[in-house]
């Protein structure tokens, strides 16, 4: 199937008092229609900046300095803000982490829902109202007419997130970017929202980029997973590959840090150290200082991406050792079992 979103060698940097610092360092990935790609990683790994780069919503001191972002046949990098505006909310949409603050407190839900329809579809107020009622019904609101006249502060967090999703999907975009949309919600509401996004994805045939740090959510929604660390993609693969055969020590660490409900005595594994800051100068692999398997080569040379299968790629020197005939892949999964059993 043809790629819906194709990102190549994207570099996003920020002008700061310490000079220009790269938050995203040459990442490439793609998303097909009706596919969910999860971007996972710790806070500060560049996952949110990647999604804001695609939307053209970087803060004023941020810029895309290299690379290409193609949505369908259109190159987005280099387009003026006014041209990108025609894509936002129309062909690509985004929902955010904080439903409590993401809606404008002084306008009614109706006003905020009609807005994208009136801007992009040139609907009259009446047409947009009718469509808004449709949308609210679709996202599971029981009395949509009443809600149109309500203000955000009158709704619960889950309701607001439904409204946000409705707003993002009003113009039936081909790409939806969801930046931790369930992080701020109760667990029961989380499941409902994830189901809703999944259902609408299949109904509308959208591609979804789902940013999260929650491995439970990944297991629930992802078709493919991309793991980011310190501005780079360290591993990408299908959700099955990543969970059953994680190739990168960082991915293994993330998986080992997921609590297991069945094991009450489990000590949670942690990844020692913390994410380097943007201005840290690191030679070699960016993860080597925290990696339990770091070898000499890791400190000197940046690893390339090694293909593990047709769909899985890992940016780690351990994989080269693998290709040379030693079976570290199995020892890799052995390690994770070991970490999990600790």
């Amino acid at each position: 199937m043809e790629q819906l979103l194709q990102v190549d060698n994207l570099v996003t940097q920020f002008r700061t008092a310490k000079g220009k610092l790269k938050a995203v360092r040459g990442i490439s990935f793609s998303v097909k229609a009706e596919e969910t790609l999860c971007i996972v990683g710790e806070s500060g790994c560049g996952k949110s900046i990647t999604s804001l780069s695609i939307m053209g919503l970087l803060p004023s001191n941020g810029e895309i300095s290299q690379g290409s972002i193609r949505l369908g046949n259109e190159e987005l990098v280099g387009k003026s803000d006014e041209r990108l505006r025609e894509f936002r909310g129309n062909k690509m949409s985004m929902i955010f982490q904080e439903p409590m603050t993401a809606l404008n407190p002084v306008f009614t839900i109706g006003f905020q829902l009609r807005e994208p329809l009136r801007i992009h579809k040139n609907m009259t107020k009446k047409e947009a109202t009718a469509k808004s009622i449709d949308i609210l019904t679709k996202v599971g609101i029981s009395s949509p007419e009443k809600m149109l006249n309500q203000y955000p502060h009158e709704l619960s967090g889950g309701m607001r997130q439904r409204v946000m999703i409705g707003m993002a999907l009003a113009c039936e975009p081909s790409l939806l970017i969801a930046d931790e949309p369930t992080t701020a919600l109760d667990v029961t509401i989380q499941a409902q929202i994830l189901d809703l996004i999944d259902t609408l994805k299949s109904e509308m045939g959208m591609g979804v980029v789902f940013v999260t740090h929650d491995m439970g959510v990944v297991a629930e929604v992802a078709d493919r997973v991309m793991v980011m660390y310190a501005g780079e993609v360290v591993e990408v693969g299908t959700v099955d590959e990543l969970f059953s055969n994680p190739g990168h020590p960082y991915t293994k660490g993330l998986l080992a840090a997921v609590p297991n409900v069945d094991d009450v005595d489990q000590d949670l594994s942690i990844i020692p150290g913390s994410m380097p800051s943007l201005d840290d100068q690191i030679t070699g692999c960016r993860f080597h200082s925290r990696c339990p398997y770091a070898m000499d080569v890791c400190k000197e040379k940046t690893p390339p991406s090694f293909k593990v299968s047709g769909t899985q790629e890992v940016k780690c020197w351990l994989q080269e050792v693998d290709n040379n005939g030693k079976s570290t892949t199995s020892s890799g999964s052995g390690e994770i079992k070991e970490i999990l059993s600790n």
Partner: protein
Amino acid sequence: MIGLIVRRFIQLLLLLLGISFLVFMSMHLAPGDPATVIGGPTATASDLEAIRKDLGLDRPVLVQYVDYLGGILHGDFGYSFQTNQSVSDAIITRFPNTLKLATASMVVAVIIGIIAGILSAMKQNSWIDISSTTFALAGVSIPNFWLGTMLILIFAVNLQWLPVGGLSSPIYTIEGMKQLILPAITLGTASAALIARMCRSAMLEVIKSDYIRTARAKGVKQKSVIWIHALRNAMIPVVTVIGINFGGLLGGTIITEQVFAINGVGRLMIDAIAARDFPVVQGTVLLVAAIFVIVNLIVDIIYAFIDPRISYD
């Protein structure tokens, strides 16, 4: 909402009662005797006694106060010691000039303040921002009697574009408008500066918020993001400043009226204080206090329209 208005109205009555008492007492306890002002330097002691008796000033102060309150309840604010004109008439003839001046100043202040505030927030640290914050600093620092005098000197005396003073022509005539320009700028500059500063900081705060990012993510045009999504949120603190300032402007026209020889309530009050004209002083002070409270009530009502989260029920 109606509950709020009723509550405020009761507050207003209590406040006016308190103020009337304070003003009445301070006027009577302060040195200076209206009889000597009216009688002039040649008046004898018996002349003065006659004048006091005539004005009712020979009675105990509390009796005079209760008498005064009784008059107010009938809409009678007393008569000027100097002109014998009724205080309500004196105020009614002059209040339109003060209201015109304060309103024109507020319009100047709101337009300049909000535009300057938004532009400097949008172009933070640019030359627009720097010049607007410099203007704001200068605006609050310059005393308005000096600003008024300088404006008269430049635009009325040297360039002769605008009249030196007065506010006699009706507002809808060109002459009337011309007469208002310099006083309105003089009185409005400080408020414009305050509004600009408040508007700038409120806008800077608001444009960082999540809902502004949401609006941009929906593809809302930059102009609508600023003027619709951001401005209405930023207006909440700005309206407070506008309200307090408008109350202040109505009470603070004294100096500007003096500089531009405008026959308004401010001048009436100053002249009355100089002449120990008790009824006029009391009447004008009560008016200013009442306006202040009413303007604040209007501000509270406007809040509820701007921000749906504010409810008075």
